[in-house]
């Protein structure tokens, strides 16, 4: 792991030193100092300005859908921290509804698996799922490649990014990954406190203590998730989504979902894999008093009792959660449609 990162840094230094004048202010991938090593194989996809820009263009490209109406950005909207704000489950092509809530495109370089059930194990393979899903973009990757080849700009952009005009599945996926890898959210107040640049208010500090006692065993710092799959006791949904079980077929995984990050919650409502809670109030009330004893409930949660949190602690906890909002992330021009 550390060797991989070391290689990457060397690569990065070379990249920077070779192209000082072209790269300008494009910084490539920078690991925030208080973050762990990323799990994405950066050495298999060296991030360049041209690759990133192509990826960004593809991310906002409606030609990725059957009737050229839906882009990745339709369901992953920057101002909502790349979620589909206001939709409990995703809303795709021809107004078709999916079965799950759009998660944020955020800090994915650290994510060892993707989707609420972890069904995708490599970010480079992830876009195939929405492109081909009937209720999302309802297209085939082969058709998308045809559309891109016929487009006046894309062959040139692929050449800039990869050295030739050839447009392949792998190149398209690598470019999309370059964009998504750079969707790093690490400049919330919480991060500045961690880096010693700011301090919490008294309420935030008290809320942080509550968080560390009651939430961080699953929503682990600094990414605010430990990436494990767990059942947090929400009632089984009407569509009986069995979560992680669908991928492993292991009965012990029924109703487990990936622990989501708690960053940018102010922008990402509604919450949970099916968007059933509209407010943080409702989420905390769930943990306080509505934990259901469904199969494979996480042992750290007591059915019926849940996690003891007083009203005062709740207010402070929410104050702390707000310090995880990263305004820079949702307004960063570099990540917007150009």
């Amino acid at each position, binding site marked *: 792991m550390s060797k991989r990162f070391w290689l990457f840094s060397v690569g990065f230094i070379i990249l920077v030193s070779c192209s000082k004048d072209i790269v300008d202010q494009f910084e490539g991938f920078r690991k925030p100092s208080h973050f762990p090593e990323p799990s994405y194989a950066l050495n*298999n996809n060296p991030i360049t300005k041209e690759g990133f820009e192509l990826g960004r263009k593809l991310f906002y490209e409606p030609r990725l859908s059957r009737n050229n109406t839906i882009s990745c950005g339709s369901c992953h909207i920057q101002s909502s921290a790349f979620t589909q704000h206001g939709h409990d489950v995703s809303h795709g092509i021809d107004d078709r509804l999916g079965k799950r809530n759009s998660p944020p495109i955020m800090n994915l370089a650290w994510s060892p698996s993707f989707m609420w059930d972890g069904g995708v*194990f490599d970010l480079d393979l992830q876009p195939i799922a929405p492109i081909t899903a009937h209720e999302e973009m309802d297209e085939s990757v082969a058709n998308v490649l045809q559309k891109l080849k016929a487009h006046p700009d894309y062959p040139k952009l692929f050449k800039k990014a990869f050295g030739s005009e050839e447009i392949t599945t792998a190149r398209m996926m690598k470019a999309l990954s370059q964009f998504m890898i750079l969707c790093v959210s690490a400049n919330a107040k919480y991060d500045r406190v961690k880096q010693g640049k700011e301090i919490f208010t008294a309420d935030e500090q008290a809320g942080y203590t509550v968080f560390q006692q009651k939430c961080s065993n699953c929503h682990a710092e600094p990414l605010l998730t430990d990436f494990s799959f767990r059942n947090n006791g929400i009632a089984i949904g009407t569509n009986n989504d069995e979560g992680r079980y669908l991928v*492993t077929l292991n009965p012990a995984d029924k109703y487990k979902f990936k622990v989501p990050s708690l960053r940018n919650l102010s922008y990402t409502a509604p919450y949970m894999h099916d968007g059933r809670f509209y407010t943080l109030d409702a989420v905390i009330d769930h943990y306080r008093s509505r934990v259901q004893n469904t199969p494979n409930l996480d042992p750290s949660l007591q059915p019926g009792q849940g996690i003891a949190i007083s009203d005062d602690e709740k207010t402070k906890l929410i104050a702390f959660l707000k310090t995880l909002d990263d305004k820079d992330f949702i307004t960063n021009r570099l990540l917007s449609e150009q």
Partner: protein
Amino acid sequence: MKKYVFMASVAMLFIVSCKKDVNDTSDESELVPLSVEFDNIVGGQNLFLNTVTYTNGAGEDFNVSMFQYFISNISLRRADGTEYVVNQDSSYFLIRESDAATRFARVKVPEGDYRQLSFILGVDSLRSTMDITKRTGVLDPSGGMEDGMYWGWNSGYIFVKFEGISPSAPVDPSGQRKFRYHIGGFGGYSAPTINNIKKITIDLSASGIARPRKGRNANIHLMVDLLKIFNNSNNLSIATNPTVMFSDFSTNIANNYTAMFYHDHTEN
């Protein structure tokens, strides 16, 4: 960490199983062509898509709209027991009934007399988890939902796709009585799950050993009887299981279809 250990053991298995050919010092430029032909049939009849009605062991009528599968990791064993493993990068084939040209898996091997053929029905786990740049040709996951051989939502290849119409199947939302068998599962990436990768080994000595030679094209002609999907060690009924995809039940079908292949003859 657990993931790496798990992956490492998968990799180990492969290294171990590939080790056999280390004593093979064949020079790449000396290789000669050999093809393996996959001739799809239904019991005693040739397979025709859509037009012909067949009957399975449960007495259910059906016709076939799609039948396609991955063949990979071809290897051949000589009379003296030594084995030649075809270069893995050139050892992936998608046999599709709808395209006659795909019925041949064409490989290059050293001249020799081969008594046994082995291949994987499916895609090995190592390749199933490789970087996307290593997934070219038939492994390119760019197919659509209809004839594609890849699950986007649960990263992995579909090894065998078999679909058709049967009066025994219930009416689906599109108004058709369709049955769909999409069988895959390479064992899981970070957590173990079903593994439907099947190694098939076929003895050629009874119906003709393969003698590939320079300037000729030896062809091992196999019959692939899709009725075996319904009836082998497990009996499958369309009425009871009209749709089988990624599920525990799929392992029954995979155990059945290992018996599809038999050697008819060899053209040397």
